[in-house]
């Protein structure tokens, strides 16, 4: 590479015009999008609250105070207490750690599998591609609930395995998107140049193709987090998610739904926080899509 590259450094610097990279452009556009800024801000705030908040409370998520069960929201317990007299606010914040954590980690798992799978399939083309995509089609036709449940039973009820299981069923769409992108990218001249220089397919995929895919991948990842969080909440609803006395937003909502007739706060607070998070993620994802000008990830 060094021998072929033109002597850029010797060119006179054009100091007056600062360069506008794709990323600084996108960042500029994103900041101009009020909804996306709102979404990003809310997510940041929630994350900080969930991580830091519990340290500043003298309640813990599993400390029971049976004499004070089902206390309505008030000055002692801002969001009330549950059937064991546990502080709801602290439980929501702890649950947020799990729900947001699962959302992030499971998305990363799905992302890694989907990107690598899609890139290989798209780059290889021909029979390999047809075979790999056929396999994705087959997995698409499976009812994922059954498989997540079987995976959870098979792997045991452990938080780490929870996001492995969720990630294992959520990577399919990512693989399809990446494959489509790679297919159109690989016909471009810079890939031809890389191939002419004798680079290995592996190097071409990881060094030349993947960086160009970041836009759609980031956008789709932002939109995958909500569906992962929904799946986690669904598993919590089934009782297959995190186990008591720990909580996630899914299990809190489930408990709240059981008791909402008398104790509305148990459903309303975790439910609205969960919805607010999904809303923010959607705003941020839509904003990123417009900012990065991604068309492939459009529904």
């Amino acid at each position, binding site marked *: 590479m060094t021998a072929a590259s033109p002597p850029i450094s010797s060119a006179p610097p054009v100091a007056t015009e600062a360069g506008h990279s794709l990323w600084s452009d996108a960042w500029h556009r994103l900041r101009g999008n009020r909804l996306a800024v709102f979404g990003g801000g809310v997510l940041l705030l929630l994350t900080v609250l969930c991580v830091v908040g519990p340290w500043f409370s003298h309640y813990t998520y599993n400390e029971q105070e049976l004499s004070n069960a089902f206390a309505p929201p008030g000055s002692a317990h801002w969001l009330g207490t549950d059937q064991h007299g546990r502080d709801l606010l602290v439980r929501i914040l702890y649950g947020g750690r799990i729900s947001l954590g699962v959302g992030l980690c499971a998305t990363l798992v799905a992302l890694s599998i989907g990107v690598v799978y899609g890139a290989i399939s798209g780059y290889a083309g021909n029979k390999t591609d047809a075979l790999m995509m056929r396999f994705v089609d087959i997995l698409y036709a*499976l009812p994922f*609930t059954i498989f997540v449940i079987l995976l959870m039973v098979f792997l045991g009820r452990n938080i780490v395995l929870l996001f492995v299981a969720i990630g294992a069923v959520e990577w399919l769409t990512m693989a399809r998107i990446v494959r489509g992108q790679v297919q159109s990218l690989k016909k471009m001249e810079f890939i031809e140049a890389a191939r002419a220089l004798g680079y290995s397919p592996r190097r071409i995929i990881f060094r030349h193709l993947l960086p160009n895919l970041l836009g759609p991948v980031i956008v789709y990842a932002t939109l995958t987090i909500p569906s992962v969080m929904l799946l986690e909440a669904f598993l919590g609803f089934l009782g297959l998610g995190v186990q008591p006395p720990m909580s996630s937003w899914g299990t809190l909502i489930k408990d709240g739904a059981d008791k909402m007739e008398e104790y509305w706060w148990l*459903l309303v607070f975790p439910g609205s926080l969960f919805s607010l998070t999904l809303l923010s993620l959607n705003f941020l994802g839509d904003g990123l899509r417009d900012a990065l000008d991604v068309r492939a990830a459009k529904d």
Partner: protein
Amino acid sequence: MLRFVVRRLLQLIPVLFVIVTLTFFMVRFVPGGPFTAEKAVSPEILKNLNAHYGLDQPLWRQYLSYLGHLVQGDFGPSFKFTNRTVNEIIAAKLPVSLELGGLALGVALVVGLPLGILAAARRNTWLDYLCTATGLIGICVPTFVLGPILALVFGIYLRWFNVSGWEYADDRVLPSLTLGFVYAAYLMRLTRGGLLEVLNLDFIRTARAKGASEVRIIFRHALQGGLAPVVSFLGPAIAGILTGSFIIETIFQIPGLGREFVTSATNRDYTLVVGLVVLYATLIVVMNLVVDVVQVWLNPKLRFE
């Protein structure tokens, strides 16, 4: 076209074969069996049970005999519901889920499509913002929050409907609204997005220049192309919605098939799991075929590919 359909239908066979094989062996490798949950079965009884259901045979023989029955449309006996076959369970519960799913689908189409069209036609007005906001709420408020809230408001406070059950015509209202609302939200977003994309194209400008009315532009010119993303979404969605929703059926106590998807897996009811997977997968593959056919019909350009 007919050749295309026939070829795709033939492709269904290997796909289903792989799915059956995958599921069959996957359920077996999960620890525990259909009889482990029952309290303290003596070893002799367990042995008899296993012998009765052929579980003492080597796995490959069980697999072959299962395939043999499956080809004849026989899903085998359920392990958990004694004296009932998987066919009977599906026959008893699928109609309930079909009815609920059909109603919810109706709600989704009646609400989602018009709102999406309206939002696209009145882009960037308060009407558009209202529709978009409603759509976002539908996506961000999960069914297990919306369902209990609807049951609380309309069932307990207002007493318009029963909170749960599936006996009277009234009982259909809350579950189908809850389930339909989510899909309506997605449909609305997709319809709006698809239409807006088409409305930017040159042939729409031509139609405008010729003085066609806005109604005519949307319904006569834009809608056909704008519906493509909606159709792609609807195919798999219909398969999912018709086979039942675990959450809705649990919240409203509906004896549908959706709950079996969860309980069969937790019970390790081997035959029921495979039976349900086959049912769902067949429906998905068939619906995807329908989607492809409809897409070609909507977009004549595809006919050349």
